[in-house]
């Protein structure tokens, strides 16, 4: 394993691990705030039990997210010092704002978790709202920094030196809005369905359990509403990628030739040696339409750039297909649930539907991992698109395989513990 590959592997592994806990930390507060708000309105004890149970799970996940996020902020320098020396000042604005958002999140989470009977009820609920706000803003700011790596703006390079830095323009780069919107919705959608899936599992065994019925109703509503919004943000994202990163789009779609009226490919196996994609189901002209709202728009193919400027096509193409597939299943599950609820005027607790939602629980996380694979691998070989190659950014430190293995072992250990802990302490039916 070369040092560059080890550094990339460590970064990818750290991000893949952190993102799970980060989205839970962003979205769980919404579920908690809804449950606690319903308790304040109805005074039904079950909602308070629910908010407390969810808070307990969130406490564990948030701590893992906070420490793994700290690791990432250091890894930017430990693994990519040249990138940070170049980009640090330019993308500093979102990172600084993220610091304050993270402060708010951590302060009010402390108040929320430990303040149940120490602060007034409405102050406690407000603390939950602040956790939600802080977490959501944190996520938005971090994704903004990533968006800059995809579509860098707010500086110019004169004789190899960075000048004219404008941190605000860098923050408002073309991908910021689409990426942050897509990711924020993904967080709520994913966690909504994951939590709904867990409570659906218990409802199948114990259909009249009020605790799980209420939990299922809240989580499925959140998941379903955000699932309906996600195609809109997905469309905005795709159009931005088509406009600003045409080669990434070509890799996502395994499009080799530059052509007008390019087809949308479902499935298919891209071959990077023969430069062709076989066995795909092609929908004529659909890609041109989705990317540019014009059936005859020109789509740039991978062959338009030399091989050394192309991302690994197969990984990006497969990851994109997986993300879209997971997303479509979740949207369908949400729509189906809405239809069942409307038709029977009751919570959709048909056994087959509960089983379906249980199976859907991990899909959002798979979609998020796949989506980040598209974003990050699709940007290769660049770390700053068209400005700095990943290979130029890596640290001169040798033997990077050692920290890679070290952190991998550590994170596998933590994952196992978290699963055991959630099963033992959180995934239980309370005594009501």
């Amino acid at each position: 394993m070369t040092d560059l590959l080890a550094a990339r592997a460590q970064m990818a592994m750290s991000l893949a691990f952190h993102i799970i806990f980060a989205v839970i930390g962003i979205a769980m507060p919404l579920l908690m705030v809804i449950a606690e708000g319903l308790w304040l309105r109805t005074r039904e004890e079950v909602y308070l039990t629910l908010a407390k149970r969810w808070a307990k799970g969130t406490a564990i996940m948030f701590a893992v997210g906070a420490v793994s996020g700290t690791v990432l902020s250091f890894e930017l320098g430990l693994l990519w010092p040249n990138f940070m020396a170049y980009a640090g000042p330019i993308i500093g604005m979102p990172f600084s704002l993220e610091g304050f958002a993270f402060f708010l999140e951590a302060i009010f989470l402390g108040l929320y978790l430990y303040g149940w009977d120490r602060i007034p009820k409405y102050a406690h609920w407000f603390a939950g709202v602040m956790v939600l706000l802080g977490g959501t803003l944190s996520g938005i700011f971090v994704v903004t920094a990533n968006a800059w790596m995809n579509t860098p703006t707010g500086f110019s390079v004169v004789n190899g030196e960075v000048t004219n830095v404008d941190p605000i323009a860098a923050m408002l780069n073309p991908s910021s809005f689409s990426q942050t919107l897509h990711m924020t919705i993904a967080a709520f959608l994913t966690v909504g369905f994951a939590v709904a899936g867990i409570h659906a599992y218990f409802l199948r065994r114990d259909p009249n359990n009020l605790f799980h019925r209420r939990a299922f109703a809240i989580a499925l509503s959140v998941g379903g509403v955000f699932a309906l919004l996600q195609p809109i943000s997905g469309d905005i994202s795709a159009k931005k990628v088509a406009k600003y990163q045409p080669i990434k789009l070509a890799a996502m779609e395994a499009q080799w030739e530059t052509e007008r009226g390019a087809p949308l490919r479902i499935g298919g196996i891209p071959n990077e040696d023969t430069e062709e994609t076989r066995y795909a189901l092609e929908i004529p002209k659909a890609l041109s339409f989705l990317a540019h709202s014009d059936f005859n728009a020109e789509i740039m193919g991978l062959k338009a750039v030399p091989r050394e400027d192309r991302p690994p096509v197969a990984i990006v193409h497969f990851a994109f297909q997986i993300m879209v597939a997971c997303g479509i299943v979740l949207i369908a599950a949400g729509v189906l649930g809405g239809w069942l609820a409307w038709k029977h005027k009751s919570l959709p607790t048909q056994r087959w539907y509960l089983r379906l939602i249980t199976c859907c629980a991990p899909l959002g996380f798979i979609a998020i991992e796949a989506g980040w694979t598209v974003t990050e691998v699709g940007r290769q070989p660049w770390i700053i698109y068209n400005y700095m190659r990943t290979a130029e950014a890596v640290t001169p430190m040798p033997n990077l395989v050692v920290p890679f293995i070290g952190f991998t072992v550590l994170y596998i250990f933590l994952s196992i513990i978290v699963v055991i802990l959630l099963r033992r302490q959180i995934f239980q039916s309370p005594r009501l």
Partner: protein
Amino acid sequence: MLSLEFCIACVMLISLIIYMLTGGADFGGGIWDLFATGPRAKAQRSLISEAIGPIWEANHVWLIVIVVLLFVAFPVAFAAISTALHIPLTLMLIGIVLRGTAFVFRTYDVQSDTTHRRWSRIFAVASVITPVMLGVTLGAVASGTIHVNVESGQVETDFISAWFAPFPFAIGFFTLTLCALLAAVYLTLETEDPALRTDFRRRALIAAVSVGAMAGLSFVLSADGAPAIRRGLSNAPWSIPFHILTGAVALWAIWTVWKRQFRLARILVPIQVTLIVFGWGLAQYPYLITPDLTFSNTAAPDAVLRPLLIVLGAGGVLLVPAFWYLYAVFKGTAQRTRRTEEESNAYQDNSA
């Protein structure tokens, strides 16, 4: 006359001081968890756990702030530190991960003695490793052994020699004793139980003496280990009065702990720690990484620093009331009385 990078440097030093006084004390709690002994070992551990539970995550964010300010405002220095000190920083990160996760796992796992003990051990050992590695990093930065080409920003030192030396480790253990002292003094006021207070009084005294010893050792080792800092600490016009002030506060702090004036001690010990960190900052200025990188030769352009300062000001306005509320709820006087009541109730529950 104040340059923008000087203002940012001041914010970083203040953040580091606050991190030491808050986050450092949380690590100190873990140190005393490791050394919890005697008939009240269990009560000591639960007192520590209750004291840091609601606040450690918020305190931890100060470290993030320091790192972010370093890479935004002084990017070349951040790259150089991350490169030359890759190994101690990685060890510190592993400590941070294990400390935080073991602490929440202990809080939410089954409350059996074996499970509890296992998480306690990891939490405590990680609480020792982390401040030592933080201190090693700061000691190496001060030592003058990290050489950087100012033109290219490339580090010219190897990956071991800058930190694997007596002086950085002396600073590492100095940091550890400061954390332990802060925690012990804070903990005397976290309980109304006189026996527990006495336990932490004794620990505070031990820690205070250790701080003195480590300060002396660090100064002696600085002759070879960090000559530039040594000159700053001993030859500047401010150095003698400053040392007298720091020493006087330290002695007064020990005296108040001895006399059981814990409220006064809780004011004096943080002042002592502040003076120590501040003195290091004074001695090191204008160098960010001695001897090649200064604050001014690594600073980002003013176009970056000006909005950064505005954000820091605005964020500070938001942060102060939030922090104040957190500490008022969990560290106010009313809170302590209430906790003591809960503790006595809990004891009754256990015995019933």
